[in-house]
């Protein structure tokens, strides 16, 4: 299912990229989870219990991501685009992000230039929005122009994740939402990546 979705998305990107002003791109990279804060409270099936946990602090967890994007470039220095793909957040927790990305190029997007990027959006987990995920990102990168619309971007991004995932109980596994009082998780990532624009 995921593979079919990916291939369809790729072909869609490539066919739409034939339109003037619209660029399709594929990006991937390494993400390091550097900070995590979580708070949750729930009643497990064991009678007489209420489990609550609060934890925050610096962590180090390696993650990876792959994204496809369609962006509209305008005014020689700016672009705005839609992005989706697959991204790892935590152990056994990955999302399908749906983000809006705005970029500002210091010279122009038609030549080699540094750029600033801002991203914001939501994400699907297990193909639903029940975790109410919010994503935001601030990045700095460099575009190396190769030929016509073909270019390669290198970037460094600071990503933020906020959501309400289901907590995992030590004895009972994933707790259903009906037994949950609250669950908050926020993480910060440092991402290093490459993007090829067609």
């Amino acid at each position, binding site marked *: 299912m995921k593979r079919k979705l990916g291939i369809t998305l790729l072909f869609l990107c490539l066919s739409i990229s034939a339109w003037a002003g619209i660029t399709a791109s594929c990006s991937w990279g390494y993400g390091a989870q550097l900070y995590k804060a979580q708070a949750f409270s729930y009643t497990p099936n064991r009678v007489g219990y209420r489990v609550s946990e609060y934890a925050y602090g610096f962590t180090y967890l390696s993650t*990876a991501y792959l994204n496809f994007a369609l962006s509209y470039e305008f005014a020689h220095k700016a672009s705005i685009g839609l992005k989706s793909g697959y991204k*790892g957040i935590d152990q*056994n927790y990955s999302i399908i992000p749906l983000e809006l990305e705005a970029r500002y190029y210091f010279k122009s997007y038609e030549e080699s230039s540094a750029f600033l990027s801002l991203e914001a959006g939501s994400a699907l987990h297990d193909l639903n929005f029940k975790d109410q995920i919010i994503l935001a990102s601030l990045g700095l990168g460099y575009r*190396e*122009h*190769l030929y016509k619309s073909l270019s390669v971007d290198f970037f460094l991004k600071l990503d933020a994740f906020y959501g309400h995932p289901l907590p995992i109980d030590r004895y009972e596994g994933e707790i259903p939402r009906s037994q949950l009082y609250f669950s908050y998780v926020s993480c910060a990532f440092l991402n290093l990546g*490459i993007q*090829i624009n067609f």
Partner: protein
Amino acid sequence: MFLFMGKRTLTVLFLLVFPLCAISAEERLPLSLTRAGLVSSFKAQSLSILSTSDKKENSFNSYNLTLDTYGLYSNVSDYPGVKLNIVHNSIIDSGRINDEIAYIIYMGAGGVAGYVRDYSALPRNHGFIFGLNTCAGALASFRGSRLELGVEFDAEWAFQIRKMEESDGRIGLSWYANGVLRALIPKISLYYRFK
């Protein structure tokens, strides 16, 4: 040993050995580092160096230090495998698409050695591999940029020696199946050209 030699003996020895050193250094010189970059794919991420030799035209060597990501995305493995691939490539076709894009198509063979995890129904642990490596790819260069973009496929025909954790830690020798099973996963290469 040199402490017991006279000054004259040392001078003679130096004069005899130095020209040999100089010649070997000079012979090594034509083998120059021409490109360095990143080869990226779903199966592995590599740091790569390409060097050419003036003695053999239409050929180059590639040296890849690879992080094997098998089992990493699915949380089967906690840490990546490491491989070193050294391949001698022959350029089988080269030319220009237009004034701005030049390309080469190459095929090569070499060796691979490393410490990686292999495909299996059982969650097998890491083991040492050694064997042969074959690859085929294309690389395009663009006018006005030192960055080159390419695509590559590679297969590893190797054996794995592994301390089998599932059978009381006995040493086992097996065929490295991942090397062939994952051969058709494309690798995207990005190289920086030094000259």
